[in-house]
C-alpha cells in the first residue's frame, strides 16, 4: 500500500511529531497544547508503525529476491543436468540398437549356416502355429 512512499517521509513525520511533543511539554503558553500533544503522539505512533512496515517489507523483498535469484540459478543447473541425462540415454540407446543389429547380422551370417540349425530347419521348416500364437500372446499387453 505504501510501496511508493519514500521511507524518509515517515522518519521526518516521526521526528516532527517528536519535536512537537517536546515543544508542547516545554512551552506552557502554547494554545491547544493538550490537543497538539495527543496529535503528536498519534502521528509519532503512526510514523513508527509505517517505518516498521517499510523495514519489514524491505527485508522480505531482499529475501524474495535472493530466493528468486537462486531459483534462476537452479533452473540453469536443471537444464544442464537434463542435457547430461539426454546424452547418457542417447549413448546407451545407440549401444543397445547397435547390439541388436549385430545379433541379427550374426543370425543371418552364422546361425543360419550352422549344421545343427540347418538340420533342424530341414526336419522342421516351420515353427508350429500354436507355439507362435503363445509367444505372440505374451508379447501383447
Amino acid at each position, binding site marked *: 500500500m505504501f510501496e511508493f512512499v519514500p521511507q524518509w517521509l515517515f522518519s521526518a513525520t516521526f521526528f516532527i511529531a517528536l519535536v512537537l511533543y517536546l515543544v508542547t511539554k516545554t512551552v506552557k503558553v502554547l494554545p491547544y497544547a493538550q490537543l497538539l500533544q495527543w496529535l503528536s503522539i498519534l502521528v509519532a505512533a503512526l510514523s513508527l*508503525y509505517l517505518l516498521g512496515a517499510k523495514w519489514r517489507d524491505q527485508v522480505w523483498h531482499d529475501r524474495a529476491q535472493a530466493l528468486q535469484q537462486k531459483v534462476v540459478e537452479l533452473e540453469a543447473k536443471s537444464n544442464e543436468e537434463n542435457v547430461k541425462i539426454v546424452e547418457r540415454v542417447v549413448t546407451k*540407446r545407440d549401444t543397445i540398437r547397435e547390439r541388436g543389429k549385430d545379433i541379427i547380422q550374426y543370425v543371418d551370417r552364422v*546361425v543360419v549356416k550352422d549344421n545343427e540349425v540347418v538340420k533342424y530347419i530341414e526336419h522342421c521348416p*516351420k515353427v508350429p502355429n500354436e507355439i507362435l500364437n503363445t509367444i505372440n500372446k505374451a508379447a*501383447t499387453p
Partner: protein
Amino acid sequence: MKAILVIISLLLAGCSTVVPVTQKFPQVPQLLLEQCKPLKQAPQDSSIIDLTKVVVDNYTQYYECSNLVQGWQEWYKVQQNIYKELK
C-alpha cells in the same frame, strides 16, 4: 519507560506484504517423453530363424524401454536434489 519501549517495538513490527517467488516445474527432456514401442509379433508359419530375430528385436525393444525408465529415474533424483537445494 518500559511501556514506551514495548509500544515502540510493537509499532515497528509493522505489517508486511507477501513477495511471491515463482518456481517453474522442471522441464523434462523430450527424449524421455517418447513412448516405448510395442513388441513385435512373430508372423504365422515363421521358421525358427524368423522367430529368433523377432525375439532378438523384442529384447532390444525391452532394453531401449528400460533405458528410458532409467533416464526418468535419474531425472527425478537429479531434480529432487536440485529442489532440495532451494529449501
